[in-house]
């Protein structure tokens, strides 16, 4: 089980990781179509923290003992014992926000459109981690723990 780590010193604060994260979670997976034609504008699952000149991107840490899974009242959040991924099942989520209350990183985001949360799934089902592979300056890296 690895995790994505940020390199604050080389992060430019360009927010492209947010853009590409949204694309990764769009229907078309296409940067133009995703924002131009899709009914629901895709949303990013990570946030670029900023206090200029400091910038760095932060997403779900897929914790060993995840507080969000502990707090989840519906069973929507779970930790996959095989992959170590902390997964969120939107079909089971009721949007109680207990995970927003407990995530120590503030990495579970409220979907502004409906009563549910969204989070990083380490690009499950895709062939690359979009935020890592699209960072123009190598400020996000995936490291095995």
């Amino acid at each position, binding site marked *: 089980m690895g995790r994505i780590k940020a*390199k604050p*010193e080389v992060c430019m604060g360009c927010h492209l990781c947010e853009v590409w994260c949204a694309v990764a979670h769009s229907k078309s997976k296409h940067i133009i179509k995703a924002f131009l034609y899709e009914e629901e504008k895709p949303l990013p699952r990570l*946030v670029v923290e900023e206090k200029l000149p400091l910038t760095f991107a932060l997403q779900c840490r897929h914790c060993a003992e995840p507080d969000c899974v502990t707090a989840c*009242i519906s069973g929507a959040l779970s930790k996959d014992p095989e992959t170590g991924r902390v997964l969120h099942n939107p079909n089971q989520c009721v949007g109680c*926000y207990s995970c927003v*209350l407990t995530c*120590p990183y503030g990495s579970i985001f409220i979907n502004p459109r409906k009563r549910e949360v969204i989070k990083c799934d380490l690009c499950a089902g895709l062939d690359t981690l979009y935020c890592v592979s699209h960072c123009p300056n190598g400020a996000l890296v995936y490291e095995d723990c």
Partner: protein
Amino acid sequence: MGNMGDYDYLIIGNSAGAVGCIEGLRSMDKNGTVALVAEEEHHVYSRALIPYYLGGQITRNKMYYRPRDFYDRARVSVIKERRAVKIHSAVRMVELDNGSRLGYGKLLLATGGKPVYPPISGLDKQQNVFSFHSMKDVLGIERELPAVRSAVVLGGGVIGLMAAEVLHKRGLDVHVLELADRLLAPVVDETTSHLVEGALQKAGVTLYLNNTIDQVHGTQRVESVTLKDGRSIPCDLLIVGVGVAPRVELAQGTGIEVNRGIVVDKNMQTAVPGIYACGDCASTYNFVTGAGQNLPLWPNAYLGGRIAGFNMAGMERAFVQGTAMNAMHFFDINIINAGINVTGAETPDGLDVIQEYNKDTQTYRKFILSEKGHIKGFILVGQIARAGIFLNLMRRKTDVRAFIKDLFKTDFGYADLPETLRWKLLQDDVILGVV
């Protein structure tokens, strides 16, 4: 009825704590035998989802907290529709209501709580009186709903207000009765209460503060209620939501200490070795106050059970993450709070209160700080994003005085922390130094 067998682990109860225990101990011990005694016939469901189900947001099968094959996969023998009635701790045996017996190596009491019914004259178990606690309530309320026009909710706490919102959404006239002078009285402060009161009134829910039921009219069914102030309300459905009492009956006659809840140490063990407790029935360590307390909230139940499971399987872990904490929403006002709640004009000795209310955005933030600048409690209303960062600072006893103004930023994050502290908290998450 004879002996139903001996198990390495025996769990009494079938909710969040029980599941936490199973998941904790099974991650350590794949082979030990596990049995669970459940009063109800249902697969493990989430009581916290009752309002969402009755409000029509989810279907019945989404009320299950874990997949249907959860117990099979975890190799747990589930004994349903049976109640444990006595613990014979000297011989490590539990007796059930049909006389049968179960031996155990380690025992977890996860018996939960039962809704409190206040002593009101004429209030017996009429057909249209329910709490918001069990599947039985759910089925009963569903059965009644088609014929209900006027619903009375006794109790203006978290459960009562969730019930009120659901019933209002179902098109009923809803009347909420609260004995205190404001809603959510022990949970949040006055400002938050008033914001919630405003939202309920705006939606059309009728509130009766400083008030309760004096008399209930009707024999088979409640037909109307007379209030303390003499007013009378028609009532087709009465929801009782005044609180939940820990179920500690099993501890009686054993050496287990009870102080409102079943008293456990940080390892979730009771005064009797080998017997553990968690969740609504237990009195557990509150990391903010340092005291043992009944903290009947979902995250505490699951995690307390999980930690009990680790300890039962021989892996020592301490439950030091529990405190009062709520994520709530009433008529689209989102509220998150945790830790100590300070109310009234007086701030207790040694504590400092800072708050900011924005009338335009209807947002509110309040932090309770110790003399050392540690967050002891907070309330966020309207703007709750990334609230967990505050809980993390609270758990780590971080001195926040150097960035106290930033706590009110709606986008407060790790970037706002002093450098040394920030990189300490994120040491496993960032790589420093240009390489």
